């Protein structure tokens, strides 16, 4: 997990045109990921985790939404590209070849009328130009690598003949068949039972130990992220509110939202005590974000929080937070960038 970033996202803004107005889904998201690193992305539903990933993969249909700003520099094998500026045709060489994808629901991502072997082989033929026979034997190898027993027979089975956990293994086999250096996994274990989730998490750890595979793992489950990630991004209201190494994030959370989120997990407080909860609900995203997205739920809010929007600001090596307040010191934090403010104020 060393060296230059594999992917550097800077200032991503994604908007949707809904019936009742614009949805400001992503409001300036910046992060990077290095080879071999696992980046966990957490946040509650609607915080923008999936839209961020779909934006990077060119999967926002122009009929419903658009990327309004930002760059996403990816070091592809053929040279650096900006993922936010590629045409659909150019994306054909990126998705599956340079970046593997795994989603929550394997059954809708797999083709039900094609054997799993053909689906893996297709990726190999398209991206690596392998012949029929060679791609079939590579498909069998891939199935074995993701832990499917009896792969030389299972290669001819259809998706419905696999259990949920095995289908997710097949999805991972397809995602990794062409040898991408980055895998984006959006809630890949959310639909699985906990004992099967543990198997998939163990598999991904093994695959990473064998190669320099970088993984972006999106989850709303902080336990899953604690178990897999090297670094964590916490999303709220279409922004990153905190970013830190995994130990630092769990032991020394700085943003009021992150603290609230961690405190509301059962088992983290005193036994038998009440759960800490965050009053209120997440923002509606109907307006351009010109204040702190957490302002109306935050117990530390000060006047300026409703007038100005704090930018993600480094507070120590590899730890950033987007908040004007320093909770531990009980005073305003110095040097927090103001990245937007309400007019007439």
């Amino acid at each position, binding site marked *: 997990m060393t060296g230059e970033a594999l992917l550097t996202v800077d200032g991503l803004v994604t908007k949707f045109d809904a019936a009742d107005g614009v949805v400001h889904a992503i409001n300036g998201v910046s992060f990077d990921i290095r080879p071999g690193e696992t980046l966990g992305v957490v946040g509650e539903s609607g915080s923008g985790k999936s839209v961020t990933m779909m934006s990077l993969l060119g999967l926002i249909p122009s009929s419903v939404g658009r990327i309004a700003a930002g760059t996403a520099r990816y070091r592809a094998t053929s040279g650096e590209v900006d993922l936010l500026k590629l045409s659909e045709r150019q994306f054909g060489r990126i998705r599956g070849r340079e970046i593997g994808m795994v989603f929550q629901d394997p059954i809708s991502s797999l083709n039900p009328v094609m054997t799993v072997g053909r689906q893996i082989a297709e990726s190999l033929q398209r991206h690596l130009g392998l012949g029929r026979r060679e791609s079939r034997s590579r498909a069998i190898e891939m199935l074995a690598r993701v832990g499917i027993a009896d792969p030389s027979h299972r290669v001819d089975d259809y998706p419905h003949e696999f259990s949920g956990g095995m289908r997710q293994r097949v999805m991972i086999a397809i995602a990794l068949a062409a040898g991408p250096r980055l895998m984006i996994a959006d809630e890949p274990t959310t639909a699985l039972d906990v004992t099967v989730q543990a198997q998939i998490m163990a598999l991904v750890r093994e695959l990473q130990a064998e190669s320099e595979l970088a993984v972006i793992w999106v989850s709303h489950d902080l336990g899953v992220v604690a*178990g897999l990630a090297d670094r964590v991004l916490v999303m709220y209201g279409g922004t990153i509110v905190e970013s830190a190494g995994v130990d630092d994030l*769990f032991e020394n959370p700085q943003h009021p939202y992150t603290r609230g989120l961690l405190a509301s997990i*059962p088992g983290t407080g005193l036994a038998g005590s009440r759960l800490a909860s965050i009053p209120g609900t997440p923002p509606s995203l109907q307006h351009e974000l010109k204040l702190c997205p957490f302002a109306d739920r935050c117990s530390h809010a000060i006047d300026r929080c409703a007038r100005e929007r704090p930018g993600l600001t480094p507070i120590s090596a590899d730890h950033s937070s987007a908040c004007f307040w320093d909770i531990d010191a009980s005073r305003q934090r110095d040097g927090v960038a103001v990245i937007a403010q309400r007019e007439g104020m």
Partner: protein
Amino acid sequence: MTAGEHADTAVVRVRDLRKHFRVSGGTVRAVDGVSFDILRGETLGLVGESGCGKSTTGRTLLGLTPATAGSVEFRGRDLTGLSRRQLRAMRPHMQMIFQDSAASFNPRHTIGSIIAEPMAIHLDLDRSAIHDRVAELMELVGLKREWRKRFPHEFSGGQRQRINIARALSLNPEFVVGDEPVSALDVSIQAQVVNLMSDLQDELGLTYLMIAHDLSMVRHISDRVAVMYLGKVVELAATETLFEDPQHPYTQALLSAVPLPNPKQERARQRILLEGDVPSPREAPSGCVFRTRCPLAEARCATEEPPYREVSPGRFVACHLVDGAGSNVVPVEITG
């Protein structure tokens, strides 16, 4: 509150309850011989993986679907033999809260009328009494009474679940089954609803059966926990006993698979990784239902069903290797 503080009066007594479904090509044994008591004022947690029969147990227990065999006694009376009309008369005492509240509401009804509906059906109250009671219930669950004219879509998921709770409590039930009542909610909102439910339990002396797959949540809310696997309860014990010292090999594997929100613990942790997935309940294995995935299975596990027995006071386990004398005699094989 612990179960022991109360005189052990069982509000609900379930014995050898079975619910089988005929489907093309066979029979699904969704619930296949479960027995347990639910004590007055306690929360019994019911956990297990998808399809193991938790919801079916909850529904059968309340008579929402007829049992195939076995008995469910509520305040000493067997519900399984009752006619529809007799069951209806019992309904106010026993209520269910479902996972997806939004789906069960009529979108054209105001939340005031949604909360009032069970009272209008079951209770002999006049309009103004119902009106007052709705306001009282809304306040009880933390909703403003001025909101009674609003429609379900104007509320967030957490608020809709509060509406659902108000509705379930409107008939003053003694016993409430919650089927994943917070699973669809985000963690910070889950906490609001869980706190509300435990406050209401204290205030109103409610008895809960809480169905959930989130084990940390179950640990937080339950006095005792029952673990299901393929239609059977494989282990039942006081919450801390179960979490600190699980005895059944399935409980051990299940607990070891739960991700902890603590990276250092996660890295240091030894895990029992089970092979494969849960078999289809249409083809439940012979003998012990867990044997196809059990790291400790022996020959007799394929032929003899392990009895569900009280291996120590208040702790029930169904495994040939856990006999009460010692426990889980063979150490479980651990993989990293």
